């Protein structure tokens, strides 16, 4: 019987718990949860503000999840140090939890660049956690003028979420376009136009030079009056626990495909980890929910004595704003080709007979077929890729491949 400790209580932790339990019913599991909540679906906080879900339905697992899986959750606890010499996790309150192996699933933290006068802003919020959303909700009124710093996934989902309950929304970003981490300029322009048509204003290639109470003076000289400030500039992986004991870290905690870190007995998974990206052929932080689960699960299976590797992780996103759906995957490396239609733009990136990535705007049906081409590095010469670009479907595969897909247990 082994004693497993999981630092963190998000999606990667759930994957780890379910991974451990798929191998062993007897091993003990202790979860260190900084947040005072049972695991919930973090990306749903914007849908919560939009009224599309509630805290009960936001549960990522059933209320009896921990009990059923015999997990000891320490709510409100925080890990300060991994004492590898004694095999103990030291908590911030000084208490110790012995472990045989540990999974660091500590997520990421909002990155707030130094901004002059930030402390003079009374109503300022992050947008990462359920508690962030609940505190933001308390101050919003139909008259609120909201300034969101950051036009990435978090900032824009926040904008959509609060849109119906505030007076106005301005989003600023240092980047020259929205969603700069997943969209090129032309695709970003389409999305921006759609957001503007829904009443969101933008100040791009611009940043706040100074806050003075309820006024932001931009670098460009523009002045923005606001009542509520949301900071969604970006996040940084929580790598501290590994860094201070000499573990290999880069932007995230570096892990192999078994999710093992450079420190024996220590695994990492989720937004804090830097694992293998099959579309890049190298490690990078893949801070997306599916990846967190899959990495966590891989770590859990290996911790419990099973043997598995996560070799086909890729960046991918499905995100929608006011009815416009956008999907993207991979690295956008290689030659670009595109398909256009009314309100539709699909871009494909091909290198060495492989689809390295894609961006879809407005038409996303059966996109998983494209995602699988990226993830599995399918040689495009084996399929009718020209037909596939026009419409995602399985007719582009050979009859033999289809027989395997639809004629057998998969």
């Amino acid at each position, binding site marked *: 019987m082994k004693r497993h400790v999981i630092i963190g209580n998000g999606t990667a932790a759930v994957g780890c718990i379910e991974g451990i339990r798929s191998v062993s019913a007897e091993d003990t599991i202790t979860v260190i949860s900084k947040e005072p909540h049972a695991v919930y679906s973090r990306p749903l906080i914007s*849908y919560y503000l939009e009224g599309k879900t509630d805290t009960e339905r936001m549960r990522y697992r059933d209320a009896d999840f921990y009990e059923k899986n015999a997990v000891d959750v320490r709510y409100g606890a925080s890990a300060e140090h991994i004492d590898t010499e004694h095999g103990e996790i030291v908590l911030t309150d000084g208490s110790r939890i012995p472990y045989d192996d540990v999974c660091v699933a500590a997520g990421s933290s909002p990155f707030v660049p130094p901004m002059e006068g930030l402390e003079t802003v009374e109503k300022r919020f992050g947008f990462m956690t359920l508690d962030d959303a609940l505190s933001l909700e308390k101050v919003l009124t139909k008259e609120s003028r909201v300034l969101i710093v950051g036009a990435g996934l978090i900032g824009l989902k926040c904008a959509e979420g609060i849109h119906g309950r505030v007076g106005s929304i301005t989003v600023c970003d240092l980047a020259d376009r929205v969603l700069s981490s997943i969209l090129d300029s032309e695709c970003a322009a389409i999305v921006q136009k759609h957001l503007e048509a829904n009443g969101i204003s933008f100040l791009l290639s611009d940043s706040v030079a100074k806050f003075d109470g309820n006024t932001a003076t931009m670098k460009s000289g523009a002045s923005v009056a606001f009542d509520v400030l949301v900071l969604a500039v970006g996040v940084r992986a929580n790598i501290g626990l590994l860094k201070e004991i000499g573990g290999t870290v880069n932007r995230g905690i570096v892990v192999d495909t078994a999710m093992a870190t450079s420190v024996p007995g220590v695994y990492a998974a989720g937004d804090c980890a830097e694992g293998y990206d099959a579309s890049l052929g190298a490690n990078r932080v893949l801070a997306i929910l*599916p990846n967190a689960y899959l990495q966590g699960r891989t770590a859990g299976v290996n911790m419990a004595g099973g043997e598995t590797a996560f070799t086909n992780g890729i960046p*991918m996103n499905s995100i*929608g704003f006011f009815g416009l759906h956008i999907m993207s995957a991979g690295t956008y490396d290689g030659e670009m080709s595109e398909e256009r239609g009314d309100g539709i733009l699909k871009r494909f990136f091909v290198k060495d007979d492989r689809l390295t990535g894609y961006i879809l705007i407005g038409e996303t*049906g059966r996109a998983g*077929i494209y995602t699988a081409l990226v993830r599995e590095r399918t040689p495009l010469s084996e399929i009718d890729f020209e037909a596939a670009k026009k419409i995602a479907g399985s007719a582009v595969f050979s009859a033999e491949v289809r027989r395997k897909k*639809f004629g057998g247990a*998969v």
Partner: protein
Amino acid sequence: MKRVYVNEEWCLGCHLCEYNCAWANSGVRFMTDALKGRKIFPRIHVEGDSKITFAVSCRHCEDPLCVKSCIAGAIRKEDGVVRINRDKCVGCLTCVLVCPYGALAPAEDGIMQKCELCLSNSFGEPACVKGCPNHAIVYEERGGAE
């Protein structure tokens, strides 16, 4: 367990499976009342090109990526069947992003729905298969884990 399998060489492309699916999951007694004059949102769909047609529905995979990827924890596998809790789904389409079979599509309200083999509706077994005139889809045991 039993699943829906495709014999594409026998598919006529008649789309009857789509109509039977939409009817079976409508909860309405008569087919005309359920479907006539309406755009249907079936959980199976016929694909193909000028040479071949075939019907695609959930494979109920051994290792379902949709279950592991759902950002709401709304999809789970129970007794071999991949099911969705529509009450939890927010319509983000991440399951569409990851399903390699292209087997998932949202319902009329934008919230996801999926083939659950008609095990929970009044048909009790896949209506698409029952109504297929040419055995182009069959419901049977072909091995593999649960």
